[in-house]
Protein backbone atom coordinates (compact mmCIF):
# COMPACT_ATOMS: atom_id res chain seq x y z
CA UNK A 1 0.00 0.00 0.00
CA UNK A 2 1.19 3.48 -0.82
CA UNK A 3 -0.25 4.90 2.37
CA UNK A 4 1.03 4.51 5.87
CA UNK A 5 -0.81 5.22 9.04
CA UNK A 6 0.83 8.23 10.66
CA UNK A 7 -0.78 7.22 13.93
CA UNK A 8 -4.39 6.74 14.90
CA UNK A 9 -6.32 9.90 15.58
CA UNK A 10 -9.96 10.96 15.64
CA UNK A 11 -11.51 12.99 12.86
CA UNK A 12 -13.25 15.22 15.42
CA UNK A 13 -9.82 16.30 16.65
CA UNK A 14 -9.06 17.19 13.04
CA UNK A 15 -12.13 19.40 13.16
CA UNK A 16 -10.98 20.97 16.42
CA UNK A 17 -7.53 21.65 14.96
CA UNK A 18 -9.12 23.19 11.88
CA UNK A 19 -11.26 25.43 14.05
CA UNK A 20 -8.22 26.55 16.02
CA UNK A 21 -6.52 27.54 12.81
CA UNK A 22 -9.61 29.33 11.50
CA UNK A 23 -9.86 31.19 14.79
CA UNK A 24 -6.40 32.58 14.18
CA UNK A 25 -6.77 33.31 10.49
CA UNK A 26 -10.39 34.25 9.77
CA UNK A 27 -12.03 36.82 12.06
CA UNK A 28 -15.44 36.17 10.50
CA UNK A 29 -15.54 32.61 11.79
CA UNK A 30 -17.69 32.05 14.88
CA UNK A 31 -18.53 28.78 16.61
CA UNK A 32 -21.68 27.55 18.32
CA UNK A 33 -22.04 24.43 20.40
CA UNK A 34 -24.95 22.64 22.08
CA UNK A 35 -23.30 21.45 25.29
CA UNK A 36 -20.67 19.23 23.64
CA UNK A 37 -17.50 21.34 23.68
CA UNK A 38 -15.26 18.46 24.73
CA UNK A 39 -16.73 16.00 22.26
CA UNK A 40 -16.32 18.48 19.40
CA UNK A 41 -12.77 19.44 20.49
CA UNK A 42 -13.63 23.14 20.51
CA UNK A 43 -11.88 24.16 23.74
CA UNK A 44 -8.82 25.70 22.13
CA UNK A 45 -10.91 27.79 19.74
CA UNK A 46 -12.93 28.98 22.73
CA UNK A 47 -9.85 29.76 24.83
CA UNK A 48 -8.37 31.83 22.04
CA UNK A 49 -11.62 33.47 20.84
CA UNK A 50 -14.08 33.60 23.73
CA UNK A 51 -16.07 36.44 22.17
CA UNK A 52 -16.58 34.41 19.00
CA UNK A 53 -18.01 31.36 20.73
CA UNK A 54 -21.67 30.82 21.63
CA UNK A 55 -22.68 28.11 24.06
CA UNK A 56 -26.36 27.56 23.31
CA UNK A 57 -27.05 24.73 25.71
CA UNK A 58 -29.05 21.65 24.84
CA UNK A 59 -31.16 23.52 22.30
CA UNK A 60 -30.11 22.53 18.80
CA UNK A 61 -33.06 24.10 17.00
CA UNK A 62 -32.22 27.46 18.53
CA UNK A 63 -28.56 26.92 17.64
CA UNK A 64 -29.38 26.50 13.94
CA UNK A 65 -31.53 29.63 13.95
CA UNK A 66 -28.92 31.70 15.77
CA UNK A 67 -26.31 30.49 13.30
CA UNK A 68 -28.53 31.60 10.41
CA UNK A 69 -28.94 35.01 12.05
CA UNK A 70 -25.22 35.43 12.64
CA UNK A 71 -24.60 35.25 8.90
CA UNK A 72 -26.65 38.45 8.64
CA UNK A 73 -23.84 40.75 9.63
CA UNK A 74 -21.19 38.78 7.78
CA UNK A 75 -20.21 36.08 10.24
CA UNK A 76 -19.36 32.53 9.18
CA UNK A 77 -20.94 30.31 11.84
CA UNK A 78 -19.80 26.75 12.50
CA UNK A 79 -22.29 24.73 14.56
CA UNK A 80 -21.09 21.76 16.55
CA UNK A 81 -22.97 18.82 17.97
CA UNK A 82 -23.41 15.10 17.28
CA UNK A 83 -24.50 14.17 13.76
CA UNK A 84 -27.92 13.01 14.90
CA UNK A 85 -28.65 16.30 16.64
CA UNK A 86 -27.10 18.23 13.74
CA UNK A 87 -29.52 16.86 11.18
CA UNK A 88 -32.60 14.83 12.03
CA UNK A 89 -33.40 16.75 15.17
CA UNK A 90 -33.24 20.11 13.41
CA UNK A 91 -34.13 19.26 9.85
CA UNK A 92 -36.78 21.91 9.37
CA UNK A 93 -34.64 24.61 10.97
CA UNK A 94 -31.85 23.77 8.54
CA UNK A 95 -34.27 23.52 5.64
CA UNK A 96 -36.01 26.87 6.14
CA UNK A 97 -33.64 29.12 8.07
CA UNK A 98 -30.38 27.92 6.47
CA UNK A 99 -30.76 26.10 3.15
CA UNK A 100 -33.83 27.84 1.69
CA UNK A 101 -32.60 31.15 3.12
CA UNK A 102 -29.20 30.71 1.44
CA UNK A 103 -27.31 31.19 4.72
CA UNK A 104 -23.59 30.63 4.96
CA UNK A 105 -23.71 28.19 7.88
CA UNK A 106 -21.32 25.28 8.36
CA UNK A 107 -23.06 22.40 10.12
CA UNK A 108 -20.30 20.36 11.71
CA UNK A 109 -21.36 16.96 12.93
CA UNK A 110 -19.36 14.62 15.09
CA UNK A 111 -20.06 11.05 16.25
CA UNK A 112 -21.63 10.08 12.94
CA UNK A 113 -22.49 6.49 12.18
CA UNK A 114 -21.99 3.22 14.04
CA UNK A 115 -18.48 4.07 15.25
CA UNK A 116 -20.00 6.24 17.94
CA UNK A 117 -20.18 2.87 19.65
CA UNK A 118 -21.58 2.09 23.04
CA UNK A 119 -24.18 4.88 23.25
CA UNK A 120 -26.26 2.90 20.79
CA UNK A 121 -28.80 3.60 18.09
CA UNK A 122 -30.34 6.77 19.58
CA UNK A 123 -27.05 8.51 18.84
CA UNK A 124 -25.78 6.53 15.83
CA UNK A 125 -27.33 8.29 12.89
CA UNK A 126 -27.05 6.39 9.60
CA UNK A 127 -29.41 8.62 7.64
CA UNK A 128 -27.73 12.02 7.87
CA UNK A 129 -25.99 12.02 4.49
CA UNK A 130 -29.32 11.34 2.82
CA UNK A 131 -31.13 14.01 4.82
CA UNK A 132 -28.54 16.63 4.04
CA UNK A 133 -27.90 15.82 0.39
CA UNK A 134 -31.59 16.16 -0.37
CA UNK A 135 -31.55 19.82 0.61
CA UNK A 136 -31.07 22.08 -2.43
CA UNK A 137 -27.83 24.00 -2.25
CA UNK A 138 -26.35 21.96 0.59
CA UNK A 139 -22.76 20.74 0.20
CA UNK A 140 -22.13 17.40 1.95
CA UNK A 141 -18.64 16.39 3.02
CA UNK A 142 -17.48 13.26 4.89
CA UNK A 143 -13.70 13.33 5.29
CA UNK A 144 -11.75 10.14 5.95
CA UNK A 145 -9.14 10.93 8.57
CA UNK A 146 -7.70 13.55 10.91
CA UNK A 147 -5.67 15.39 8.29
CA UNK A 148 -8.49 15.50 5.77
CA UNK A 149 -11.02 16.64 8.36
CA UNK A 150 -8.75 19.47 9.42
CA UNK A 151 -8.20 20.51 5.81
CA UNK A 152 -11.92 20.28 5.04
CA UNK A 153 -12.82 22.39 8.07
CA UNK A 154 -10.49 25.12 6.87
CA UNK A 155 -11.63 24.83 3.25
CA UNK A 156 -15.36 25.18 3.91
CA UNK A 157 -14.86 28.59 5.51
CA UNK A 158 -13.92 29.90 2.07
CA UNK A 159 -16.91 28.31 0.37
CA UNK A 160 -19.99 30.53 0.39
CA UNK A 161 -23.09 28.51 1.17
CA UNK A 162 -24.39 25.94 3.62
CA UNK A 163 -22.18 22.92 4.23
CA UNK A 164 -22.72 19.69 6.14
CA UNK A 165 -19.38 18.39 7.45
CA UNK A 166 -19.60 14.88 8.88
CA UNK A 167 -16.95 13.25 11.03
CA UNK A 168 -16.60 10.71 13.80
CA UNK A 169 -15.65 9.76 17.29
CA UNK A 170 -13.04 6.95 17.32
CA UNK A 171 -9.33 7.15 16.71
CA UNK A 172 -8.72 5.75 13.24
CA UNK A 173 -5.82 5.59 10.81
CA UNK A 174 -4.49 8.99 9.79
CA UNK A 175 -2.96 8.43 6.39
CA UNK A 176 -3.60 11.31 4.00
CA UNK A 177 -0.72 13.77 3.53
CA UNK A 178 -0.65 16.45 6.20
CA UNK A 179 -0.39 19.22 3.63
CA UNK A 180 -2.91 17.88 1.13
CA UNK A 181 -5.08 20.64 -0.30
CA UNK A 182 -8.79 20.07 0.19
CA UNK A 183 -10.82 20.80 -2.91
CA UNK A 184 -14.58 20.60 -2.35
CA UNK A 185 -16.20 18.31 -4.90
CA UNK A 186 -12.93 16.83 -6.14
CA UNK A 187 -12.44 13.08 -5.68
CA UNK A 188 -8.99 11.82 -4.72
CA UNK A 189 -7.41 8.93 -6.56
CA UNK A 190 -5.70 6.93 -3.82
CA UNK A 191 -4.65 3.90 -5.78
CA UNK A 192 -4.97 3.06 -9.45
CA UNK A 193 -6.23 -0.35 -10.54
CA UNK A 194 -7.85 -2.12 -13.46
CA UNK A 195 -10.29 -4.80 -12.28
CA UNK A 196 -12.68 -2.99 -9.96
CA UNK A 197 -13.37 0.53 -8.69
CA UNK A 198 -13.87 1.04 -4.97
CA UNK A 199 -15.22 4.45 -3.99
CA UNK A 200 -15.36 5.10 -0.29
CA UNK A 201 -16.13 7.94 2.07
CA UNK A 202 -15.35 8.68 5.71
CA UNK A 203 -14.02 5.92 7.90
CA UNK A 204 -14.51 3.41 5.08
CA UNK A 205 -11.68 4.88 3.00
CA UNK A 206 -8.93 3.29 5.09
CA UNK A 207 -10.91 0.03 5.03
CA UNK A 208 -11.02 0.28 1.24
CA UNK A 209 -7.25 0.59 1.11
CA UNK A 210 -6.90 -2.47 3.36
CA UNK A 211 -9.35 -4.33 1.13
CA UNK A 212 -7.38 -3.40 -1.98
CA UNK A 213 -4.24 -4.73 -0.33
CA UNK A 214 -5.96 -8.03 0.40
CA UNK A 215 -7.38 -8.21 -3.11
CA UNK A 216 -3.93 -7.70 -4.56
CA UNK A 217 -2.78 -10.94 -2.96
CA UNK A 218 -5.58 -12.65 -4.90
CA UNK A 219 -4.40 -11.02 -8.11
CA UNK A 220 -7.27 -8.53 -8.21
CA UNK A 221 -6.31 -4.98 -9.10
CA UNK A 222 -8.56 -2.50 -7.30
CA UNK A 223 -8.74 1.20 -7.98
CA UNK A 224 -9.50 3.13 -4.77
CA UNK A 225 -11.09 6.56 -4.91
CA UNK A 226 -11.73 8.76 -1.90
CA UNK A 227 -15.02 10.59 -2.28
CA UNK A 228 -14.93 13.14 0.53
CA UNK A 229 -17.59 15.31 -1.07
CA UNK A 230 -20.82 13.42 -1.59
CA UNK A 231 -22.54 16.53 -2.91
CA UNK A 232 -21.57 17.88 -5.35
CA UNK A 233 -20.35 14.48 -6.49
CA UNK A 234 -17.31 14.21 -8.73
CA UNK A 235 -19.17 12.41 -11.53
CA UNK A 236 -16.24 12.61 -13.90
CA UNK A 237 -13.79 10.82 -11.62
CA UNK A 238 -16.27 7.98 -11.07
CA UNK A 239 -17.16 7.64 -14.76
CA UNK A 240 -13.54 7.72 -15.83
CA UNK A 241 -12.71 4.92 -13.43
CA UNK A 242 -15.62 2.60 -14.27
CA UNK A 243 -14.96 3.01 -17.97
CA UNK A 244 -11.67 1.30 -17.18
CA UNK A 245 -12.79 -1.26 -14.56
CA UNK A 246 -16.42 -1.88 -15.61
CA UNK A 247 -17.61 -2.52 -12.04
CA UNK A 248 -17.79 -0.62 -8.79
CA UNK A 249 -18.18 -1.04 -5.04
CA UNK A 250 -19.30 1.87 -2.89
CA UNK A 251 -18.43 1.90 0.81
CA UNK A 252 -19.86 4.16 3.49
CA UNK A 253 -20.80 4.17 7.16
CA UNK A 254 -24.42 5.00 6.36
CA UNK A 255 -27.64 3.41 5.26
CA UNK A 256 -27.57 2.18 1.67
CA UNK A 257 -30.75 4.21 1.20
CA UNK A 258 -29.82 7.82 0.65
CA UNK A 259 -26.08 7.57 0.94
CA UNK A 260 -23.03 7.80 -1.31
CA UNK A 261 -23.92 4.54 -3.04
CA UNK A 262 -27.23 5.88 -4.29
CA UNK A 263 -25.61 9.06 -5.54
CA UNK A 264 -23.06 6.99 -7.45
CA UNK A 265 -25.82 4.73 -8.80
CA UNK A 266 -27.68 7.76 -10.17
CA UNK A 267 -24.60 8.89 -12.07
CA UNK A 268 -23.94 5.43 -13.45
CA UNK A 269 -27.53 4.61 -14.40
CA UNK A 270 -27.92 7.80 -16.36
CA UNK A 271 -24.49 7.94 -17.95
CA UNK A 272 -22.73 4.58 -17.93
CA UNK A 273 -24.70 1.63 -16.50
CA UNK A 274 -22.28 -0.44 -14.45
CA UNK A 275 -22.63 -3.35 -11.98
CA UNK A 276 -22.45 -1.92 -8.46
CA UNK A 277 -22.37 -3.41 -4.98
CA UNK A 278 -23.10 -1.44 -1.83
CA UNK A 279 -21.14 -1.68 1.39
CA UNK A 280 -23.45 0.14 3.77
CA UNK A 281 -25.96 -0.62 6.48
CA UNK A 282 -29.06 -2.36 5.22
CA UNK A 283 -31.94 -0.10 6.29
CA UNK A 284 -31.38 -0.80 9.95
CA UNK A 285 -30.71 1.00 13.22
CA UNK A 286 -27.46 0.37 15.05
CA UNK A 287 -26.96 -0.86 18.61
CA UNK A 288 -24.48 -0.70 21.49
CA UNK A 289 -21.04 -2.24 21.08
CA UNK A 290 -17.47 -1.30 20.37
CA UNK A 291 -16.90 0.42 17.03
CA UNK A 292 -14.99 -2.59 15.69
CA UNK A 293 -17.71 -5.01 16.78
CA UNK A 294 -20.38 -2.88 15.17
CA UNK A 295 -18.51 -2.42 11.91
CA UNK A 296 -18.00 -6.19 11.77
CA UNK A 297 -21.60 -7.05 12.62
CA UNK A 298 -23.10 -4.55 10.16
CA UNK A 299 -20.71 -5.38 7.35
CA UNK A 300 -18.71 -2.16 7.23
CA UNK A 301 -15.06 -3.21 7.18
CA UNK A 302 -12.36 -4.27 4.75
CA UNK A 303 -13.61 -7.88 4.78
CA UNK A 304 -17.06 -6.70 3.72
CA UNK A 305 -15.52 -4.67 0.91
CA UNK A 306 -13.54 -7.68 -0.31
CA UNK A 307 -16.72 -9.76 -0.32
CA UNK A 308 -18.55 -7.05 -2.25
CA UNK A 309 -15.73 -6.96 -4.80
CA UNK A 310 -16.06 -10.70 -5.30
CA UNK A 311 -19.79 -10.29 -5.86
CA UNK A 312 -19.46 -7.47 -8.32
CA UNK A 313 -16.71 -9.18 -10.28
CA UNK A 314 -19.08 -12.08 -10.88
CA UNK A 315 -21.63 -9.69 -12.34
CA UNK A 316 -19.08 -7.98 -14.56
CA UNK A 317 -19.51 -8.82 -18.20
Amino acid at each position, binding site marked *: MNYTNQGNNDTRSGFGAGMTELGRTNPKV*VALCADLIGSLKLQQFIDENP*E*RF*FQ*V*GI*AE*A*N*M*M*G*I*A*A*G*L*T*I*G*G*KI*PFTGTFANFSTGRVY*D*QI*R*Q*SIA*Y*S*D*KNVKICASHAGLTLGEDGATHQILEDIGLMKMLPGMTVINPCDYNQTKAATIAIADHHGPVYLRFGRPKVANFTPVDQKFEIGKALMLQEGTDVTIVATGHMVWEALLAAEALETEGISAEVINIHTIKPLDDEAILKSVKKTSCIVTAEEHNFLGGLGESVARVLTTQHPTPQEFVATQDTFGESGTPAQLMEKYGLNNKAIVAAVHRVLQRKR
Partner: protein
Amino acid sequence: MPKLEELQDLVQQTRRDILRMVHKVNSGHPGGSLGCAEFFVALYHEIMQLNDGFDMDGIGEDLFFLSNGHISPVYYSVLARRGYFPVDELNTFRLIDSRLQGHPTTHEGLPGVRIASGSLGQGMSVAIGAALAKKLNNDNHIVYSLHGDGELQEGQNWEAIMYASGNKVDNLIATVDLNGQQIDGATDTVLPMGNLKEKFEAFGWDVLEVEQGNDLQSVIDGLKEAKSRIGKGKPVCILLHTVMGNGVDFMMHTHAWHGKAPNDEQLAIGLEQNAETLGDY
Protein backbone atom coordinates in the same frame (compact mmCIF):
# COMPACT_ATOMS: atom_id res chain seq x y z
CA MET B 1 -50.64 67.12 7.09
CA PRO B 2 -49.47 65.97 10.52
CA LYS B 3 -47.24 62.91 10.51
CA LEU B 4 -49.77 60.75 12.33
CA GLU B 5 -52.42 61.38 9.69
CA GLU B 6 -49.97 60.48 6.95
CA LEU B 7 -49.15 57.27 8.73
CA GLN B 8 -52.84 56.57 9.24
CA ASP B 9 -53.36 56.95 5.51
CA LEU B 10 -50.59 54.43 4.98
CA VAL B 11 -52.28 52.02 7.36
CA GLN B 12 -55.54 52.31 5.48
CA GLN B 13 -53.84 51.86 2.13
CA THR B 14 -52.01 48.84 3.51
CA ARG B 15 -55.35 47.29 4.46
CA ARG B 16 -56.57 47.80 0.91
CA ASP B 17 -53.38 46.23 -0.44
CA ILE B 18 -53.84 43.21 1.82
CA LEU B 19 -57.45 42.67 0.77
CA ARG B 20 -56.71 43.09 -2.92
CA MET B 21 -53.64 40.83 -2.83
CA VAL B 22 -55.37 37.87 -1.21
CA HIS B 23 -58.55 38.38 -3.21
CA LYS B 24 -56.75 38.25 -6.53
CA VAL B 25 -55.22 34.83 -5.91
CA ASN B 26 -58.03 33.58 -3.68
CA SER B 27 -55.50 32.57 -1.03
CA GLY B 28 -53.29 34.00 1.66
CA HIS B 29 -53.77 35.24 5.21
CA PRO B 30 -55.72 38.49 5.60
CA GLY B 31 -56.70 38.18 9.29
CA GLY B 32 -53.33 38.48 10.98
CA SER B 33 -52.10 40.82 8.26
CA LEU B 34 -54.88 43.33 8.92
CA GLY B 35 -54.29 43.11 12.66
CA CYS B 36 -50.66 44.10 12.28
CA ALA B 37 -51.00 46.96 9.78
CA GLU B 38 -50.42 49.66 12.41
CA PHE B 39 -47.39 47.82 13.81
CA PHE B 40 -45.70 47.47 10.42
CA VAL B 41 -46.38 51.06 9.37
CA ALA B 42 -45.13 52.40 12.71
CA LEU B 43 -42.02 50.21 12.59
CA TYR B 44 -40.98 50.96 9.03
CA HIS B 45 -42.03 54.60 8.83
CA GLU B 46 -41.46 55.91 12.33
CA ILE B 47 -39.33 53.64 14.48
CA MET B 48 -36.59 51.84 12.59
CA GLN B 49 -33.39 53.49 11.42
CA LEU B 50 -32.93 52.19 7.90
CA ASN B 51 -30.26 52.66 5.27
CA ASP B 52 -31.17 53.49 1.71
CA GLY B 53 -31.39 50.46 -0.52
CA PHE B 54 -31.07 46.90 0.67
CA ASP B 55 -28.03 45.03 1.87
CA MET B 56 -28.38 41.56 3.32
CA ASP B 57 -25.88 42.16 6.13
CA GLY B 58 -27.73 45.28 7.29
CA ILE B 59 -24.68 46.83 8.93
CA GLY B 60 -25.40 50.22 10.48
CA GLU B 61 -29.18 49.94 10.40
CA ASP B 62 -31.99 48.39 12.38
CA LEU B 63 -33.23 44.98 11.26
CA PHE B 64 -36.64 43.33 11.30
CA PHE B 65 -37.48 39.64 11.15
CA LEU B 66 -40.98 38.33 10.54
CA SER B 67 -41.34 34.96 12.24
CA ASN B 68 -45.03 34.35 11.49
CA GLY B 69 -44.41 34.46 7.77
CA HIS B 70 -48.00 33.79 6.77
CA ILE B 71 -48.84 37.46 7.31
CA SER B 72 -46.74 38.19 4.24
CA PRO B 73 -49.40 40.48 2.67
CA VAL B 74 -48.89 43.22 5.27
CA TYR B 75 -45.11 42.73 5.14
CA TYR B 76 -45.00 43.01 1.35
CA SER B 77 -47.29 46.01 1.25
CA VAL B 78 -45.25 47.93 3.81
CA LEU B 79 -41.90 46.94 2.26
CA ALA B 80 -43.10 48.06 -1.17
CA ARG B 81 -44.49 51.35 0.08
CA ARG B 82 -41.27 51.94 2.04
CA GLY B 83 -39.43 51.70 -1.27
CA TYR B 84 -37.80 48.28 -1.15
CA PHE B 85 -39.40 47.21 -4.42
CA PRO B 86 -41.98 48.60 -6.88
CA VAL B 87 -45.49 48.85 -5.45
CA ASP B 88 -46.85 47.37 -8.69
CA GLU B 89 -45.07 44.15 -7.84
CA LEU B 90 -47.76 43.53 -5.21
CA ASN B 91 -49.76 42.39 -8.25
CA THR B 92 -47.62 39.27 -8.42
CA PHE B 93 -48.33 38.00 -4.89
CA ARG B 94 -48.45 34.19 -4.89
CA LEU B 95 -48.26 33.96 -8.69
CA ILE B 96 -45.83 31.78 -10.60
CA ASP B 97 -42.36 33.32 -11.13
CA SER B 98 -42.98 35.94 -8.45
CA ARG B 99 -40.60 37.27 -5.82
CA LEU B 100 -43.63 37.60 -3.55
CA GLN B 101 -43.97 33.99 -2.50
CA GLY B 102 -46.84 32.82 -0.33
CA HIS B 103 -44.46 33.02 2.62
CA PRO B 104 -41.51 35.43 2.62
CA THR B 105 -38.18 34.17 1.39
CA THR B 106 -34.74 35.37 0.43
CA HIS B 107 -34.63 32.73 -2.27
CA GLU B 108 -36.10 34.89 -5.02
CA GLY B 109 -34.06 37.91 -3.98
CA LEU B 110 -36.87 40.14 -2.76
CA PRO B 111 -35.27 43.25 -1.21
CA GLY B 112 -36.17 43.78 2.43
CA VAL B 113 -36.42 40.11 3.37
CA ARG B 114 -33.46 38.56 5.21
CA ILE B 115 -34.79 35.13 6.19
CA ALA B 116 -37.41 32.69 4.99
CA SER B 117 -40.30 32.15 7.38
CA GLY B 118 -43.51 30.22 7.27
CA SER B 119 -42.67 27.09 9.17
CA LEU B 120 -43.38 28.63 12.55
CA GLY B 121 -41.25 29.25 15.59
CA GLN B 122 -37.90 29.92 13.94
CA GLY B 123 -37.70 33.69 13.74
CA MET B 124 -36.67 34.54 17.27
CA SER B 125 -33.55 32.39 17.03
CA VAL B 126 -32.61 34.12 13.79
CA ALA B 127 -33.22 37.54 15.31
CA ILE B 128 -31.00 36.62 18.26
CA GLY B 129 -28.24 35.55 15.86
CA ALA B 130 -28.49 38.84 13.99
CA ALA B 131 -28.43 40.72 17.30
CA LEU B 132 -25.29 38.84 18.37
CA ALA B 133 -23.66 39.70 15.04
CA LYS B 134 -24.46 43.36 15.67
CA LYS B 135 -22.74 43.16 19.05
CA LEU B 136 -19.68 41.51 17.48
CA ASN B 137 -19.62 44.22 14.83
CA ASN B 138 -20.00 46.98 17.44
CA ASP B 139 -23.10 47.99 15.53
CA ASN B 140 -25.32 49.88 17.92
CA HIS B 141 -28.57 49.24 16.06
CA ILE B 142 -31.63 47.30 17.12
CA VAL B 143 -33.06 44.01 15.92
CA TYR B 144 -36.86 43.75 15.86
CA SER B 145 -38.94 40.65 15.38
CA LEU B 146 -42.63 39.79 15.20
CA HIS B 147 -44.25 36.55 16.31
CA GLY B 148 -47.78 35.26 16.36
CA ASP B 149 -49.22 34.32 19.71
CA GLY B 150 -50.24 30.87 18.51
CA GLU B 151 -46.73 30.54 17.16
CA LEU B 152 -45.39 30.51 20.71
CA GLN B 153 -46.72 26.97 20.95
CA GLU B 154 -43.62 25.96 18.98
CA GLY B 155 -40.95 24.84 21.46
CA GLN B 156 -38.02 26.46 19.67
CA ASN B 157 -39.33 29.85 20.83
CA TRP B 158 -38.74 28.92 24.44
CA GLU B 159 -35.20 27.79 23.70
CA ALA B 160 -34.66 31.19 22.14
CA ILE B 161 -36.44 33.10 24.92
CA MET B 162 -34.24 31.34 27.49
CA TYR B 163 -31.09 32.01 25.49
CA ALA B 164 -31.77 35.70 24.91
CA SER B 165 -32.13 36.59 28.58
CA GLY B 166 -29.43 34.18 29.75
CA ASN B 167 -26.98 35.83 27.39
CA LYS B 168 -28.19 39.41 27.83
CA VAL B 169 -29.22 39.93 24.22
CA ASP B 170 -30.43 43.43 25.05
CA ASN B 171 -30.45 44.83 21.52
CA LEU B 172 -33.53 42.81 20.62
CA ILE B 173 -37.19 43.85 20.70
CA ALA B 174 -39.48 40.88 20.07
CA THR B 175 -43.14 41.70 19.57
CA VAL B 176 -45.88 39.13 20.03
CA ASP B 177 -49.06 39.74 18.06
CA LEU B 178 -51.55 38.90 20.78
CA ASN B 179 -54.79 38.48 18.82
CA GLY B 180 -55.85 35.35 20.66
CA GLN B 181 -56.71 33.45 17.49
CA GLN B 182 -55.16 30.66 15.49
CA ILE B 183 -56.35 28.45 12.63
CA ASP B 184 -58.46 26.07 14.68
CA GLY B 185 -59.93 28.68 17.01
CA ALA B 186 -59.03 30.74 20.04
CA THR B 187 -55.52 30.16 21.35
CA ASP B 188 -57.01 29.55 24.78
CA THR B 189 -59.01 26.68 23.31
CA VAL B 190 -56.41 25.15 21.03
CA LEU B 191 -53.56 25.18 23.53
CA PRO B 192 -53.82 27.60 26.44
CA MET B 193 -50.59 29.52 26.94
CA GLY B 194 -51.43 31.07 30.26
CA ASN B 195 -50.11 34.47 31.23
CA LEU B 196 -47.55 35.36 28.59
CA LYS B 197 -46.37 38.47 30.43
CA GLU B 198 -45.55 36.41 33.49
CA LYS B 199 -43.98 33.71 31.35
CA PHE B 200 -41.64 36.14 29.54
CA GLU B 201 -40.79 37.83 32.84
CA ALA B 202 -40.07 34.48 34.45
CA PHE B 203 -37.67 33.86 31.58
CA GLY B 204 -35.88 37.13 32.41
CA TRP B 205 -37.30 39.49 29.79
CA ASP B 206 -38.36 43.09 30.14
CA VAL B 207 -42.01 43.00 29.07
CA LEU B 208 -44.34 45.82 28.14
CA GLU B 209 -47.89 45.60 26.94
CA VAL B 210 -49.56 47.68 24.26
CA GLU B 211 -53.25 47.32 25.02
CA GLN B 212 -54.42 49.15 21.89
CA GLY B 213 -52.36 47.45 19.20
CA ASN B 214 -54.57 48.83 16.47
CA ASP B 215 -54.28 52.41 17.63
CA LEU B 216 -51.39 53.88 15.70
CA GLN B 217 -50.30 56.35 18.38
CA SER B 218 -50.37 53.63 21.04
CA VAL B 219 -48.23 51.36 18.87
CA ILE B 220 -45.71 54.15 18.21
CA ASP B 221 -45.58 55.01 21.90
CA GLY B 222 -45.11 51.36 22.83
CA LEU B 223 -42.30 50.86 20.35
CA LYS B 224 -40.59 54.06 21.54
CA GLU B 225 -40.90 52.90 25.12
CA ALA B 226 -39.37 49.55 24.12
CA LYS B 227 -36.50 51.35 22.39
CA SER B 228 -35.80 53.26 25.59
CA ARG B 229 -35.32 49.97 27.41
CA ILE B 230 -32.64 48.70 24.99
CA GLY B 231 -29.11 48.12 26.28
CA LYS B 232 -30.10 47.48 29.88
CA GLY B 233 -29.12 43.84 30.09
CA LYS B 234 -32.45 42.32 29.13
CA PRO B 235 -34.17 41.49 25.86
CA VAL B 236 -37.40 43.43 25.46
CA CYS B 237 -40.79 41.90 24.67
CA ILE B 238 -43.85 43.81 23.52
CA LEU B 239 -47.17 42.08 23.99
CA LEU B 240 -49.20 43.76 21.28
CA HIS B 241 -52.93 43.33 21.77
CA THR B 242 -54.50 43.39 18.33
CA VAL B 243 -57.72 42.33 16.69
CA MET B 244 -57.41 39.79 13.90
CA GLY B 245 -59.00 41.21 10.75
CA ASN B 246 -58.93 44.75 12.12
CA GLY B 247 -60.50 47.41 9.88
CA VAL B 248 -62.87 45.11 8.04
CA ASP B 249 -65.88 44.59 10.26
CA PHE B 250 -66.91 41.12 9.19
CA MET B 251 -63.35 39.81 9.53
CA MET B 252 -62.86 41.05 13.09
CA HIS B 253 -62.93 39.05 16.33
CA THR B 254 -62.86 35.64 14.65
CA HIS B 255 -60.31 33.12 13.45
CA ALA B 256 -62.40 32.51 10.32
CA TRP B 257 -60.29 34.88 8.21
CA HIS B 258 -56.91 33.59 9.34
CA GLY B 259 -56.24 31.99 5.99
CA LYS B 260 -59.22 32.71 3.78
CA ALA B 261 -59.58 35.25 0.99
CA PRO B 262 -62.69 37.41 0.51
CA ASN B 263 -64.91 36.85 -2.53
CA ASP B 264 -65.81 39.70 -4.90
CA GLU B 265 -68.67 40.94 -2.78
CA GLN B 266 -66.72 40.72 0.46
CA LEU B 267 -63.79 42.52 -1.14
CA ALA B 268 -66.08 45.35 -2.20
CA ILE B 269 -67.37 45.74 1.35
CA GLY B 270 -63.85 45.64 2.77
CA LEU B 271 -62.61 48.27 0.34
CA GLU B 272 -65.63 50.44 1.02
CA GLN B 273 -64.65 50.44 4.69
CA ASN B 274 -61.10 51.44 3.75
CA ALA B 275 -61.12 54.20 1.17
CA GLU B 276 -58.13 54.65 -1.11
CA THR B 277 -55.59 57.09 0.35
CA LEU B 278 -52.23 56.82 -1.40
CA GLY B 279 -53.39 55.13 -4.57
CA ASP B 280 -53.91 51.44 -5.24
CA TYR B 281 -51.10 49.51 -6.90
